[in-house]
């Protein structure tokens, strides 16, 4: 299980290393800041969807490995979100904060994205065992913020699309499916589906 976690860690780190290397090697095109901005943002969205798929996957397969990496993937999502925001501030805004006001006025989707990131921040700082214990029941309630964050991230992305809705639609569909799987009836049904050999084994016992 330790190996599994390490593998996930390395896999999540690789995109960052790859893009950083591409920029360093001059392979990122004539606008490397924009290149990083878009890639970090998209990576954060993919990681968010992956994180949200872990619980349904665990219900479906009963494999505990999925639960073991949930916090880690959540933190990776947040990290790529921070990289995305940092890229905007450094490479697009050029740290010219006098231009920030005008930019936010014209591009409200930046505010929407920022709100999502603030929510992820709240989840990240309360992702430790101490916070879980201290918050008790409220912890679960708080961490449902992730659903709102997903909606905001999809809205943030939707606003930027200009010529083709294909990619956005794919992510939105994945998001909708993951939300549907959380409806109690569906979620319970998911828990009843077991891998075939499991079911065969239990039938044997009942005889």
């Amino acid at each position, binding site marked *: 299980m330790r190996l599994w976690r390490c593998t996930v860690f390395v896999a999540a780190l690789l995109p960052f290393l790859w893009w950083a290397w591409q*920029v360093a090697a001059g392979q990122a*095109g*004539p*606008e*490397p*800041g924009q290149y*990083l901005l878009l890639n970090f943002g998209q990576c954060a969205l993919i990681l968010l969807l992956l994180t949200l798929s872990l619980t349904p996957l665990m219900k479906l397969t009963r494999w505990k490995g999925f639960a073991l990496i949930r916090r880690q993937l959540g933190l990776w999502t947040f990290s790529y979100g921070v990289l995305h925001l940092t890229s905007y501030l*450094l*490479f*697009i805004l*050029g740290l010219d904060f006098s231009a920030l006001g*005008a*930019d936010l006025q*014209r*591009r409200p989707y930046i505010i929407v994205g920022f709100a999502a990131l603030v929510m992820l921040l709240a989840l990240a700082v309360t992702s430790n065992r101490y916070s879980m214990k201290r918050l008790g029941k409220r912890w679960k309630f708080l961490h449902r913020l992730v659903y709102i964050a997903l909606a905001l991230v999809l809205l943030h992305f939707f606003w930027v699309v*200009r*010529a*083709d*809705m*294909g*990619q*956005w*639609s794919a992510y939105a569909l994945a998001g909708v499916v993951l939300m549907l799987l959380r409806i109690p009836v569906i979620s319970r049904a998911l828990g009843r589906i077991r891998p075939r050999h499991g079911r065969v084994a239990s039938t044997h016992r009942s005889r």
Partner: protein
Amino acid sequence: MLIRTRKRHHIGEHQVTPESVYLARRHFMAGVAGLGMAAALPRSVWASSHYDDVEKGRQPDWLASRLDNTHWQAVTAGENDKLTPFNDASHYNNFFEFGTSKDDPYKHAGDMTTEPWTIEIDGEVARPGTLDVDQLLGEQQLEERIYRLRCVEAWSMVIPWLGVPLSEIIKRAEPTSDAKFVRFQTLVRPEEMPGQRSRFALIDWPYQEGLRMDEAMHPLTILSVGMYGRVLPNQNGAPVRLVVPWKYGFKSIKSIVRISLVKEQPPTAWPTINANEYGFYSNVNPDVDHPRWSQARERRLPNSLFSTNMIDTQMFNGYEDEVASLYKGMDLRTYF
């Protein structure tokens, strides 16, 4: 402040030979003299020495036969307008027929068949017809035009095009008095264009653009067939594209298969999708913002992580003296 910038700039545009060009020419002349084969070399070598870091690409007959007689640097850009490296100009494109990412066009445009290619000229003309690129260019001398290219997305490049004035092509077709606008259409070939296969594309293919007759006849407006002394890469709109340097880049439609002279202002791609954000004219104008971003400044590419390379955007992309009269009396906020 804008006026001061423009004036200083304008002197540069007509009188100053960039140092790099001067040096490149000297270098070439020295090389030729050294080899003792000056007489044997065609003029086109001038271009290949000037653009020696440029990927050669294929060379169709219609281009090869015209390079020797090309008017190099017929129009140059300002002294601060350094040429964008070929590699950047050919690897960072908007050509939505091939996808929405900047690198999609160079990844996918190689699949587009550009030979054979025909351009249909029709509508309000006395001599309609279907021409190949050779016939389209006809006797017209190729000219190199170094233009600033300002994208509506607030980035810009400086590109040496090879082409001919559109006015000459239109004149040859003998437009009737009913011809008030020119409509252009891009190739539709989904089997070679992944963006056209997408079911989620917002553009209603074919990509369509248009100019008012006086804009089309303006001497700065060209049909381009090459850049950097070579044929156009497919992703840059091979084999024939429009270049209108005082308008946002999307007006300069790529891979043209049809040019029609028409009575009414034609519907064009971007205003059709979103009339609030894009207008028919789409003249570069630092005072009229895109609803989602400012157009007052632009990122001159390539830039780096350490500098966005922001410069002030100029009225009509710096071609105000040449084109402002076309829009006299028009409210450019209404007709953006």
